[in-house]
């Protein structure tokens, strides 16, 4: 037993609303008529498609190969036929499209050949590769590939299994711990070995006594492996840095990773998925999802990755006054604008929202600098300062005040008496800063290329001049006075003149009229309206331009 728990600053205690959905056991969701499995499981990880329309796939068959350092493989969640590759909306605040493999299930749910993997028999790297090939990513939220988080197997003192589940309404981890404690701990044991930890702690908020009891009972089966620690219920105790702080007292420094402090943190779902992959040879193709909120039958379901949200919702029977659906918890989740969004590996909860349960925010008032947000902020930020600068679009200043230490937990917005959507301002500022960094990179590149070009032209001019001089000398030596060297130079003059004229025109247009009006200006050759009209044409090939 751990003698001492530590504290983190701030935090909030919203009503938990967990009882309703935590009561019934996890049920398997029925096979949907169609599965849409995005090749991109998170913003960072992309995969290359391995199947073609018409192809039959088995459950667990690889359909996408991870690309790049953060890629992990993607698998078919059930057996059936690939009917197409189509863009589908991502479960992301932007609702932008991403490419997905559409599978029509054949109803047999036929697995590929599953074989337990003896991770002790192979080198560590091979085990990590295996996990990657099983598509194991973090199921606690960020979807970060687990094999990368397992690192090089050295320097980790403490492995933490995150069973906090601090957001209200969500109960998938709770149910998972109650029902599959042994699997979780088995997964934890594997992670423990792979990462080379000295000890393993499981942190569970003390509002889940059953889960704690179940985990403790299961822990008896793994003597000496884990400590199950009940931590005080306070949002966001499940945040990685907060949990590490509570359990170990370590404060992960800004810009550093837990590993550099000898701690690594995995979600309980991740641990269970690792267990399934190693001991049962099953890639990650399903997860537990909480359906709750304004529904008649709240509960948890084992759902295949790729199941569209709309088909899932029928299970919970949303009440008629439901006006929108949230994916994730009410603190950090997103509103789903398109119900065809598929369940992904990190989709832990769907909440049916009604005006009564989730009233629209009252009008935003000015900040009165009351400091409530600062008291609630688990990152010890001064959210109102960040807000003040973000609102004025003074994002540089916001960054100076440590904008990037904000974990977007929403505690500040939760307590703000002025109902300011603080997190939205922070997200705005963050993406503004990223955009500026991209622009800066682009402009540095442009400057370099421009300067290089000038240098090159200069050099070419010099070379040409030298050549001409040599030629002239030669000519002069041959005959006397008939051909002048300038004649030779005129060869490329027309082009230069054209460019100069174009530059002049460009400048003139600017001086005379705004560029995209379409009245041709007297004296300016028809170029200007031409450009303008062409710019306005919708373009068929812009994917080339942007990829």
């Amino acid at each position, binding site marked *: 037993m751990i003698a001492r728990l530590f504290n983190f600053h701030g935090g909030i205690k919203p009503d938990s609303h967990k009882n309703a959905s935590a009561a019934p056991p996890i049920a398997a969701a029925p096979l949907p008529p169609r599965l849409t499995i995005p090749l991109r499981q998170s913003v960072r990880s992309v995969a290359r498609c391995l199947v073609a329309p018409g192809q039959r796939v088995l459950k667990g068959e690889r359909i996408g190969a991870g690309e790049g350092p953060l890629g992990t493989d993607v698998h078919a969640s059930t057996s059936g036929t690939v009917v197409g590759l189509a863009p589908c909306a991502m479960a992301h605040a932007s609702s932008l499209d991403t490419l997905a493999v559409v599978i029509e299930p054949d109803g047999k749910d036929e697995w590929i050949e599953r074989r337990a993997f003896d991770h002790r028999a192979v080198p560590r790297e091979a085990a990590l590769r295996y996990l990657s090939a099983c598509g194991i990513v973090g199921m606690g939220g960020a979807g970060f590939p687990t094999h990368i988080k397992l690192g090089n197997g050295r320097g980790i003192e403490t492995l933490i299994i995150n069973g906090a589940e601090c957001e209200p309404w969500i109960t998938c981890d709770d149910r998972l711990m109650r029902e599959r404690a042994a699997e979780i701990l088995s997964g934890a044991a594997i992670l423990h070995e792979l990462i080379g930890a000295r000890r393993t702690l499981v942190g569970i908020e003390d509002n889940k006594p059953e889960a704690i009891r179940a985990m403790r009972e299961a822990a008896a089966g793994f003597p000496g492996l884990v400590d199950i620690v009940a931590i005080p219920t306070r949002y966001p105790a499940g945040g990685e840095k907060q949990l590490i702080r509570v359990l170990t007292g370590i404060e992960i420094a800004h810009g550093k990773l837990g590993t550099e402090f000898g701690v690594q943190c995995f979600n309980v779902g991740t641990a269970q998925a690792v267990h399934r992959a190693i001991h049962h040879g099953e890639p990650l193709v399903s997860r537990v999802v909480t359906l709750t909120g304004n529904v008649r039958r709240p509960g948890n379901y084992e759902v295949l990755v790729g199941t569209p949200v709309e088909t899932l919702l029928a299970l919970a029977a949303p009440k008629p006054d439901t006006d929108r659906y949230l994916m994730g918890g009410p603190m950090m989740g997103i509103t789903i604008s398109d119900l065809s969004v598929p369940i992904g590996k990190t989709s832990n909860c769907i909440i049916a929202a009604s005006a009564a349960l989730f009233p629209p925010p009252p009008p935003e008032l000015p900040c009165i600098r009351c400091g409530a947000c600062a008291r609630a902020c688990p990152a010890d930020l001064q959210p109102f300062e960040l807000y*003040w600068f973000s609102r*004025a679009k*003074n994002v540089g200043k916001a960054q100076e005040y440590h904008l990037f230490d904000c974990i977007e937990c929403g505690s500040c917005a939760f307590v703000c008496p002025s109902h300011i959507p603080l997190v939205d301002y922070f997200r705005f500022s963050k993406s503004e800063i990223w955009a500026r960094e991209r622009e800066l990179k682009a402009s540095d590149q442009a400057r370099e290329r421009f300067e290089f070009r000038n240098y090159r032209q200069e050099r070419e001019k010099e070379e040409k001049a030298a050549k001409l001089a040599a030629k002239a000398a030669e000519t002069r030596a041959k005959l006397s006075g008939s051909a002048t060297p300038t004649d030779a130079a005129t060869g490329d003059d027309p082009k230069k003149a054209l460019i100069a004229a174009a530059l002049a025109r460009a400048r003139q247009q600017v001086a005379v009229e705004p560029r995209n009006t379409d009245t041709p200006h007297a004296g300016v050759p028809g170029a200007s309206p031409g450009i303008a009209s062409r710019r306005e044409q919708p373009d068929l090939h812009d994917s080339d331009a942007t990829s």
Partner: protein
Amino acid sequence: MSSYIFIVIGAVLVNNVVFVRILGLCPFMGVSKKLETAIGMGAATTFVLTLGSGTSYLIDHYLLQPYDLAYLRTLSFIVVIAAIVQLTELVIQKTSPLLHQVLGIYLPLITTNCAVLGIPLLSVALDYTLLESLLFGFGSSIGFTLALILFAGLRERLDGADIPAPFKGTAIAMITAGFMSLAFMGFAGLDRFQ
């Protein structure tokens, strides 16, 4: 000793150059948009004003008064100070070109920062000794710097405020200066404890 302290307190707070004596307002309004430049300007002014007060005292005491040339006071003071400023400008230009660019038009204007002439003239009028003149010049410029820094801090904060359109910019800055001057009236009397 305590009279020296009162000279400094008086110059910094009670009779603050900017808010009570109403001197040096152009740089006060012009160079207070950012804290860094405010500090730079404050430092430059402190240097010039302290040096100027001392030099002015010497000129007045050893050249003008003995030869009964009081009418040359303004002229000689301002010329000497202008030269000091120009020297400072040349030196800053070399040693800290960026500070120079930022202070741009204000460095030459230090000369006509009326405080720079006003304070030496005042210390002659107050019949201060050399040490007192130096303290008075130094205290006044510290008062100026203090005003400038506080003002810059406030203006940086005002950047984000939803100020009515016509008041944006210099108007609200002027009004803020008014409130500051009101606040500084609170120091009244603190330089003459009985």
